[in-house]
């Protein structure tokens, strides 16, 4: 049985529709990230789950019970904020024990819960400090301890790592997941960082313009995104536009711009259909001279990414692609002619979006 379920939920603020007709199920023990560009409605979505806002339409069910009329303080959840919001006038200890304290538990119980949650986030020896005396990462850990002390099954994380330095963000990311899994909690984690979403989640829900675009395991979403928006928002992609010119069994000849042609594996699209081919930069390769399954182009730029090199190549179709190659790869100079080779196994093919490619990829 799902722990949290949203049924046809819509939220309007005056004329603005923040969330539109969303259905979502989160299973017991699952770690779900809600991923989307800023302004896509993801924060509104979890605020409705938490009970900070009531939906304009639709139902929010927790454990099969409609919780819309239930007040925030009776919802039984842990909430972690992007801007941390530890109570500045209370010590870390008082912050961490706030929940058992306001629930009126006995002194011993309060202190044993405090010790337990602070040990979990490794802050027990700093419990006498005030929030402003801690580093950003330690502050967010203390806030996490405060949320855990609520002893709730459901943890809601509203961009919990966005305010932190990039190194701290990476470390905390895995601690967060490990903690949730060890304690057997259910987590809904909102983020705009696709790398963070992929690396912590059991399942990723992609949102755009108030709606859910698609959802799936991180691997599925990266490897075979069903929606063209996802293919570019989750990881990067190169796109070539064209139309099916000829078919032969499971192969199709795609007519690209400027009289360029490519044979690609495709059994789904009929002749004449406008399509978009997509490859991630790491699935492309560069070589000198002609290649049968490649397109000619000119190197326009080179960028150093640390572990690999990225070449920006203008193809004969006038489209630009990024090609990531290992540092040991043979080098090209800017302005040099080259051939871009495509890995057909890893290719994605989409029908051309009716609103145009650019519009379909736009964040807002």
């Amino acid at each position: 049985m799902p722990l949290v379920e949203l049924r046809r939920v819509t939220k309007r603020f005056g004329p603005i529709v923040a969330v539109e007709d969303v259905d979502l199920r989160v299973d017991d023990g699952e770690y779900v990230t809600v991923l989307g560009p800023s302004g896509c409605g993801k924060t509104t979505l979890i605020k409705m789950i938490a009970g900070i806002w009531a939906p304009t339409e639709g139902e929010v069910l927790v454990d099969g019970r409609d919780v819309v009329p239930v007040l925030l303080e009776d919802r039984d959840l842990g909430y972690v904020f992007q801007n941390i919001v530890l109570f500045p006038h209370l010590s870390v200890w008082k912050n961490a024990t706030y929940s058992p304290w306001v629930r009126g538990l006995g002194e011993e119980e309060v202190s044993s819960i405090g010790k337990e949650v602070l040990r979990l986030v490794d802050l027990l020896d700093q419990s006498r400090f005030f929030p402003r005396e801690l580093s950003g990462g330690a502050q967010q850990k203390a806030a996490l301890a405060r949320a855990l002390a609520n002893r709730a099954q459901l943890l809601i994380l509203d961009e919990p790592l966005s305010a932190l330095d990039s190194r701290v963000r990476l470390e905390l990311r895995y601690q967060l997941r490990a903690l949730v899994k060890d304690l057997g909690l259910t987590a809904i984690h909102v983020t705009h960082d696709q790398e963070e979403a992929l690396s912590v989640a059991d399942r990723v829900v992609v949102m755009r313009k108030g709606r859910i675009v698609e959802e799936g395991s991180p691997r599925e979403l990266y490897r075979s995104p069903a929606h063209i928006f996802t293919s570019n928002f989750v990881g990067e992609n190169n796109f070539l536009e064209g139309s099916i010119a000829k078919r032969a069994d499971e192969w199709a000849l795609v007519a690209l711009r400027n009289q360029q042609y490519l044979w690609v594996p495709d059994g789904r699209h009929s002749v004449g259909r406008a399509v978009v081919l997509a490859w991630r930069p790491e699935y492309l390769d560069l070589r000198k001279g002609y290649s049968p399954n490649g397109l000619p182009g000119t190197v326009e730029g080179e960028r150093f990414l640390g572990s690999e090199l990225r070449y920006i190549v203008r193809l004969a179709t006038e489209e630009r692609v990024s090609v990531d190659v290992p540092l040991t790869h043979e080098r090209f100079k800017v302005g040099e002619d080259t051939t871009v080779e495509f890995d057909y196994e890893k290719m994605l093919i989409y029908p051309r979006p009716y609103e145009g490619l650019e519009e379909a990829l736009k964040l807002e």
Partner: protein
Amino acid sequence: MREGQGDTRNRRLSQRLLAFLSRRPIIATWYGAVLLYFFLLVLLPTLFVLSFVFTGWQAIQGLLSARPEVLGTIGSAILLSYQTAIIVTLVDLVFGLPLAWFLVRRAFRGKSLLNTLIDSPLAVPTAGLGFSVALFWGVTPFLDFKPFGSLGLVSSGLLILILLHFTTTFPYMVRSLSAILKEIDIDYEIAARASGASKLTATRTVTLPLFRSGIATGATLVLAKALSDTGGVVTALTTIGKFGVNTADCRAEGELNGTALIAAWKTLSDVAGCQSSEFTAGLALVAILMIVSALALLVVVKILTMRARIPMKRIFPTWEKRLSRGIAPRIRDGATFFFLIFLVLIPSFFLIGFLLVGSPEPIEWNTLYRSIYFSFMIAGVATAIDLALGIPMAIFIVRGGMRRLGRAMDVLVNVPYIVPSAALGISLSLFFTQQRLVPVPSLFFIVTLAHVAFTFPFVVRNVTGALEGLDPAMEETARSLGARPLQSFRRVTFPIIKASILAGAIMAFTRSVGETGATLAVAGREAIITAPVYIVNLILEEQNFYAAALATTVLISVSATAMLLMRYITRRAR
């Protein structure tokens, strides 16, 4: 775009002028002049009366041995002042907090209307408020009929003063509380409630402790206002027959508080048959006691709100939960609005209703017009001086680069505001008649200086507030693009803080127009008759309530028109 040669030359000239004016020595001189003015003509005169303890000790001793009952009179007057001020502050807090919450945390239609309503009593000069409140609540021995709607219940001085000061202070309380509440992130409340705290528990344990500075500011404003008001006190006490000046016996009679006592003695000191030297000593003594006790009280308030631990140990989850929902919050909101409507708004404007039912009595229109003219002249000149000195002072406090002095000035600027203005007036007139440092100017000039002293803090407070909220990086960016300090102020800082400057100016102006105590204390009731003094005179000497109500209404409408005009002009200028 082509430019004429004259344009270019002008521009070059103004560039050079700006460069010259932005030079360090020039700016330092300007700061110095402002500080000098403040110390010499604001702070020193304000506290000058304290020196009377040394210079006039014999006069005080003489007074006390000749008329030993004076000490008791002063004691009970000051006690009455503080009883009133403290009770009013506490009640204002109780009703001000939920109202501020309502205004800040809830979205509803007509919010700006509610804001205007809450501020509206500020438009009535306190001299008018005093008798408006007394007409509504009080028994009116001088009136041969009971005005329609009047309750006629209150005959106690303490009670009428408390009721009066609800109207004079509640707007200040709500304003300062909601200003600070706006700054507190609502996420703190959400975090507390997500942890299982009910609304009441969250407010008590999280928001209120973060709110101390707001409570301190509100309490300070209200205490100062309630302690220093004279016009409202005199008219309210007179209306219920508790203020009298017996010129035959040279005695003040009735149930007087500190400022009323000053007003009464000041009147008596001008009466030919009374010994004016005795009253000089007496007035100085009251002024000293009020100034010292006001400063002490403020320190206490500061310590209480900053140090006192809000009782936090115990939590009563079920009870607090029960009080957070259902009928309890409704009762709270209902009581708050009841207070706002029946204890603040209706009493404030009751005098307008009185105009409709009272029997018309003659009014000397010429004297009224002259008094309004005087009030506006004084307020205009005082506000102009406030702006000329207050803006540089605020910049000096926030950006002056002299940390210690800046912080010290931040505190000192408030002193003339905190000191009861009647006591300040006594101090000022003593200063200008006794010292030899500054030449003695005209009475009009001294009154204006007195008004500068107690309105000056409004401008400085508002502007420092705005400057502190402004990222210095903005000015630095302008400077890095080649702007001189004065240019960057004019082009970047000024447009951003303009609204706060205007707010400060309006507060200073209205306070000056409505002020009675200092004007009375400096000039007496006959020499310079400002509009509020005229209203006091009408009530005190003639018991001409109808004329007083009419004069107040005229003053309110003139002030309101002036204010709207000022808003309109500044909006156009944008």
